[in-house]
């Protein structure tokens, strides 16, 4: 230790202090960035060169090598009497290395015999069609295509003296396997759900709908980082105008990066300012498959486990797949429960405020005395109580989503029991209100659609304010506003209150569930090309069939659409 170290002990060594960090770039940095961007754009448009060394330099420039450690460039020689230099480029973590080793490197390096003197075109054809056993091999000629393929998980192989490259499908990144649905659980019905793997999701639909007319049109959205977007539909069933319109809207999405289907939904929905969802976002393959057969289309976005189905009707947002799998009385029963839950989740706190503040004469005297007694110690007005409890519930709900699962149940006990019980014991909240708020929460949790549950949660506060100002009258005005708003909302041109308002022909599957063998027509609200979806009364062996057939015949005679029948 010398005297310099001693000086550093007693003084501030400002040599370690960095220059102050600022986010805005300097003029020099801007010029450097624009030259890089210009070079990138020029590179992307350029054709792949013959010279492998030049291609290597271009790769280094595009992918910022060797700085970017994700991109791997493997130099090798294609075997044969006169070996040809080549290089394989892939992204570590996206590509399956086993496939690269066994389907690209091994065949080309070890198992190859070439004839010299072949032209370049024949040579790449030979390699593509005879040497590379990958299930999808594509020839690319521009750097743009090459870069896109590399970034999507394929391996691109460049050859010396050839101005094209071969892209081999080698996607194989780690992803979650198909598991139970997180937000749409059912008791009776399939339990699988979409995952973050794009092709797994489309595959789940294909496995259910083994139909040659099931079309998957794919595109990519995102200028900075491309995200795969697929539109699935059944040709011959769906109205072609719908597909044309959705493709038009997707093509108009010009963003740098599209992260999830939720963002895509906001880009392409009809009215972005409304509170009612215009898409059905679901993670259940069976719901999507059923929707496709009814004349709707589905949009899959990148690694999102939620598919978007449209056009959607408001009644569909209240339905679950389980309604169809149960017999019709039970399906109708649980639908009625859900409709009642919707009304409770939306209106119960508002009605409680209206009754206690403005219309106490409605309550029987004994109950009114009980309510008054329970509220005697509470120093706050009813509105304030309700708002406190609703806000607390929203806090508990949000905390419950983000809390680590290890201590989740513990916090649930804290929130539900201790806070509620403590609040009542302290005289801040009345016990009756705890019941009201709890029942309201149960009602809103019953909503099968996650987006619709948000609608209920948000609108509930509006109704609370309306009832606190004007009682039942305010609640009525609020309801009328909501009904008119819903009556004017459209999902890809289809009024969401169809087939009730406007009145459209439909099978008995709107609010209640009818008998499945009478549901012969697809929903006419979607204007499908093929309206008929099953044979008339598909129970010819059943005693119920003649009665149902007679009833249907009477209905058709009334509407003047009687068809000729052959004598049975």
């Amino acid at each position: 230790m010398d005297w310099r170290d001693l000086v550093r002990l007693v003084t501030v060594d400002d040599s370690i202090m960095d220059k102050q960090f600022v986010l805005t770039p300097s003029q020099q940095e801007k010029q450097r960035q624009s030259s890089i961007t210009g070079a990138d754009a020029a590179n992307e448009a350029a054709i792949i060169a013959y010279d492998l060394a030049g291609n290597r330099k271009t790769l280094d420039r595009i992918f910022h090598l060797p700085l970017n450690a994700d991109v791997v460039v493997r130099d090798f020689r294609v075997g044969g009497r006169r070996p040809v230099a080549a290089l394989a480029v892939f992204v570590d973590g996206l590509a399956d290395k086993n496939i690269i080793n066994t389907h690209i490197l091994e065949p080309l390096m070890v198992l190859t015999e070439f004839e010299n003197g072949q032209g370049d075109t024949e040579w790449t054809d030979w390699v593509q069609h005879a040497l590379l056993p990958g299930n999808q091999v594509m020839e690319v000629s521009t750097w743009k295509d090459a870069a896109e393929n590399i970034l999507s998980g394929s391996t691109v192989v460049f050859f010396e003296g050839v101005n094209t490259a071969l892209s081999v499908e080698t996607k194989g990144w780690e992803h979650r396997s198909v598991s139970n649905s997180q937000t749409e659980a059912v008791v009776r019905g399939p339990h699988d759900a979409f995952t973050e793997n794009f092709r797994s999701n489309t595959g789940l639909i294909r496995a259910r709908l083994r139909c040659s007319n099931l079309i998957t049109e794919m595109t990519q959205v995102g200028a900075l980082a491309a995200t795969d977007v697929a539109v699935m539909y059944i040709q011959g069933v769906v109205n072609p105008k719908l597909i044309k319109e959705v493709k038009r809207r997707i093509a108009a999405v010009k963003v740098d990066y599209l992260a999830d289907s939720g963002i895509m939904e906001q880009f392409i929905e009809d009215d972005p300012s409304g509170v009612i969802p215009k898409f059905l976002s679901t993670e259940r393959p069976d719901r999507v498959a059923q929707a496709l057969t009814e004349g709707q289309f589905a949009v899959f976005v990148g690694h999102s486990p939620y598919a978007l189905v449209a056009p959607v009707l408001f009644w569909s947002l209240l339905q679950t797949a389980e309604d169809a799998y149960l017999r019709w009385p039970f399906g109708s029963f649980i639908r009625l429960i859900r409709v009642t839950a919707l009304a409770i989740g939306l209106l119960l706190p508002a009605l409680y405020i209206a009754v206690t503040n403005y219309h106490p004469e409605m309550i029987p005297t004994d109950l009114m005395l009980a309510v008054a007694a329970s509220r005697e110690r509470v120093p706050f007005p009813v509105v304030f109580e309700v708002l406190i409890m609703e806000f607390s519930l929203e806090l508990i709900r949000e905390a419950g989503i983000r809390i680590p699962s290890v201590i989740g149940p513990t916090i649930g006990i804290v929130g539900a029991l201790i806070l509620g019980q403590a609040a009542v014991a302290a005289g801040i909240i009345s016990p009756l209100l705890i019941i009201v708020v709890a029942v309201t929460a149960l009602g809103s949790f019953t909503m099968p659609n996650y987006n619709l549950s948000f609608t209920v949660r948000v609108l509930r506060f509006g109704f609370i304010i309306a009832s606190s100002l004007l009682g039942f009258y305010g609640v009525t005005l609020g309801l009328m506003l909501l009904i008119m708003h819903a009556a004017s909302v459209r999902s890809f041109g289809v009024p969401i209150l169809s087939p009730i308002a406007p009145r459209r022909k439909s099978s008995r599957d709107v609010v209640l569930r009818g008998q499945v063998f009478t549901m012969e027509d697809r929903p006419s609200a979607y204007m499908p090309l093929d309206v008929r979806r099953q044979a008339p009364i598909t129970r010819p062996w059943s005693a119920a069939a003649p009665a149902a057939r007679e009833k249907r015949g009477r209905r058709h005679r009334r509407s003047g659409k009687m068809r000729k029948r052959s004598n049975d």
Partner: protein
Amino acid sequence: MNAKRLPLIHTGRVGVVELTALMTVYSSTEIFLSMPSRIAMEGAGFAWAIPLVSGTLVLIAFLIVHMCLKRFPGENLLQVISRLFGRFTALPLALLFALLLLTQTALVTREFTETVVTTVFPATPSAVITFTFLLVALYYAYKGLEGLSRTALLFSYFFLFGLAMLLILPLSWFDARLLLPFWGHGVGNAVWFGTINTSLYFNVLFLSILYPTLRDRDHFLYVGVISTVVTAVIFSIVLVVFLGTFTAAESGNVPFPLYQLARVIYVGRFVQRLEAIFVFLWTAAAVIKMGFGLWMVAYLYALGFGMPLYRPLLAPVTLQLYVLSFLPPDFPAVLALSAAVFEPYGWLVGVLLPTLLAVAAALVDWRRKRRGKETGAPREAQTFRKGSGRLRARGRVFSRSP
């Protein structure tokens, strides 16, 4: 020679069932005001027949209008008048209709406001209730005919159910003997009041203006007949229950008939004092009635002046409604105005005038066709939709005079 017809303002298309529901709800909403009391006072035990007489007369008028307008497919009454008699005949007619609806809607607004204030919010200023009513009505009118008709259709199910409950639950108080004497003040009296009470029905006027908006015009007759018949039956049944619950002698003194009917409901300890629940019913009905009235005033005004849009007129018309509704000093003045002016004379503009205009237009058209002049279609070939929306071009052969 045909003058240029009024341009049609884009309103979208409405379905047959939706328009029927809208017409029915609009007319039937009168039962929540003082109409049952007034008619009960006029007809006593036979008052239930007065709406049936009115309905029959309105039905006849509608059938006449329908037969006349069939000669002019795709045009409403004002367009036909402007084409046959000149643009400057249609404008005062449009303004007259608009004025009638404006004043009538203002009166209805005041009546509903007084009902809500008296029955539910005695300490709240009327201006607050009127303002909130009109704000919602403005939103309804802004959303247009499609939204109005769909909301009316959706609401009609609750309306019929709620009305049925309102009529069934007080049946414990119903006494059929209170309907006697059966003929009331006499058949002649009933026919006379039935004639002037056609002021309650605006179906003829509305449908003669809204005819081109129907998605399927072949069902125009259905809309008019069903809405008129259903409204008349509803009026009649309400009067039967009202008279059987309250005596004819006292029924004329009941200011809010259906509210009083709701107040007498008592089916056990828990099913009583339900009048607050029925606030939902008549508030919702009032919003639809006022919204449609406001829309129609703006639409007629714009149509008369040949404007391409009516929406910019909604806010000023709403302000006019607000001001006009406060002109009568109190509720008895409102009732007096309604009984002295609108009921005795409203039918002249709302029922008789559209009928006469339709007959006159049909006669002129018939005479011109007889003389072989070009008529029956505008100068350009007509194209209009029918049924499922397929476009059909129907060019007419123009015959010249020999």
